[in-house]
């Protein structure tokens, strides 16, 4: 088909707009990467836009040599694993149990879950409850309160109800217990859904800074994102290097003068973002699938 001139102009315009959009996403990361890989005192003079002018890995050595950051990293990894496993487990079990349409009191139980999606006591009563359960300032404050997600439960339940009933019934006829049905039929058939919900839960845990900032006061318990949140408004570099935790960096004291607050900030934020950048291309399709299944209202 022959295209008209106005059509070609339209196509070009659309391509330009979309390219600019992509650039606005990609460029800030390249910029931060370039700053983080440049000698800090040199970057401060300006002019580093895309490529490091005086290449160095020293900013990263300082960041990764910092005991506080390394510890925060461990907390993030631990809570992401524990939070995702427990979150999936509790949510899947509830979704499977509630997927039985003939379950006595099912409607009451569904209502019990639904009400919590519509109304909440708010932040302060939640905080008071965390206090009364002695969860404040423990690692468990990251895991236990978020182990059940009503939203994910409904998505999962709809998915399980989409599995042909004949399949489940025949297993029950053969004398399989509910646990058996769950493990040998439902779980294998739900893998894509479990993958999507698991990834959402993992990203939520990886990115959460709020719990670390307000439910925890022990610096040994904060995750990376909370560390970043504290560093965000830091006015001088001692926030990172002031503590004597940075033995390795201080041993090379003469190089410390080349590190600036900005170069440290940029390398720290890259360290927190790079894992997501690395897994993103592989997991993207699961995310998209998860949204699409989740959006189909039943």
């Amino acid at each position, binding site marked *: 088909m022959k295209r008209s001139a106005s059509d070609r102009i339209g196509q070009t315009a659309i391509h330009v707009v979309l390219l600019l*959009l992509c650039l606005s996403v990609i460029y800030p990361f390249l*910029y931060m990467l370039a700053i983080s890989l440049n000698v800090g005192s040199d970057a401060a003079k300006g002019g580093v836009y895309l490529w490091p002018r005086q290449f160095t890995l020293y900013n990263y050595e300082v960041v990764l040599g910092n005991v506080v950051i390394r510890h925060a990293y461990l907390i993030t990894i631990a809570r992401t694993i524990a939070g995702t496993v427990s979150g999936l487990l509790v949510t899947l079990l509830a979704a499977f149990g509630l997927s039985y349409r003939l379950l006595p009191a099912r409607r009451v139980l569904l209502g019990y879950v639904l009400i*919590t999606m519509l109304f909440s006591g708010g*932040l302060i*009563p939640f905080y008071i409850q965390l206090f009364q359960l002695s969860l404040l300032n423990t690692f468990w404050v990251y895991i236990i309160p978020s182990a*059940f997600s009503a939203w994910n439960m409904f998505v999962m339940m709809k998915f399980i109800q989409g599995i042909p009933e004949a399949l489940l019934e025949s297993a029950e006829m053969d004398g399989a217990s509910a646990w058996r049905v769950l493990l040998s039929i439902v779980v294998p058939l739900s893998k894509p859904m479990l993958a999507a919900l698991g990834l959402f839960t993992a990203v939520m845990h990886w990115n959460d*800074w709020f719990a670390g900032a307000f439910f925890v006061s022990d610096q040994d318990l904060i995750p990376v994102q909370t560390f970043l949140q504290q560093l*965000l408004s830091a006015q001088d570099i001692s926030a990172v290097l002031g503590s004597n935790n940075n033995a390795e960096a201080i041993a090379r004291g003469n190089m410390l003068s080349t590190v600036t607050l900005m170069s440290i900030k940029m390398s720290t934020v890259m360290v927190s973002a790079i894992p*997501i950048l690395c897994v993103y291309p592989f997991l993207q399709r699961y995310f998209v699938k998860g949204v699409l299944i989740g959006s189909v209202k039943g």
Partner: protein
Amino acid sequence: MLDRLYKYRWQYVMIAPAVVLLFLFSYIPMAGIQVAFKNFHIGNTMWTSPWVGLDNFAFLQDDQFWSVVKNTIYIAVLKFVFGFPAPIALALLINEVRHSGFKRFVQSVSYLPHFFSWIVVAYILQSLLTLDGGLVNQMIAGLGGQPVFFLGSTDWFRPMIVASGLWKEVGWNTILYLAAITTIDPQLYEAARVEGAGRWAQVRHITLPGILPTISIVLILSMPSLIAVGMDQIYPLMNPANQPVADVLDTYILRSGLQQGYFGMATAVGLLSSAISLLLVLITNKTSRKINGEGLW
């Protein structure tokens, strides 16, 4: 009856952890709303603290509170006005791209910011906008202009919030619209072309009407969270300089409750904002039943 309960015993065991967790972390906090009418101090329990009537609602006469309400509504409306149509426009643009490789590339890239925390977004803004060595100010200086203190400016705060919110979520929010567009019957476009409709006419008369149901569902679902204008997004960017326009209900609750210890008063503010959210949910559901013949429940 007992037989049936016994038959489903394992299902109840499976549901039990969720029931317990909801009881502990949703229902008890709902009962905790009584703190709004009590004099509560950490160390007391919410049950034994003395009642004080409506004393905690004194903030209703406080000018600062009303400026917080104004900020909340202002930001909520701005985010909605820009944030709601943007993904529809982007989905229409992406749909017009014929090169499928480029299409996939644009989609993948535009989803990406959704997976970064608001803290990372705050760092990006800082790296671009900060006074000392920020990219934008370097450029302004290079062109001979005066550097602007974007991060501490009351004028630039709202545009910054709206723009960064758009940047982070616009791509992600196109997913549903793009999926809806793929369900439109290609024969409709064929017929339109035969009748001489151009690209723009096809968008207006086929694509847009085709995704209208999706648009209305997204609209309805976005209503209840309208006034919850992201503590996640705003708190990291708030500082004493921009606080007059940045302070919203969520940050006000956080500051007065967790940081200053006015638990009763912060709970009362939270109760008002929960009530408004609930009201929005109920209105939304009613409207949805009228329009779609079906509610959210």
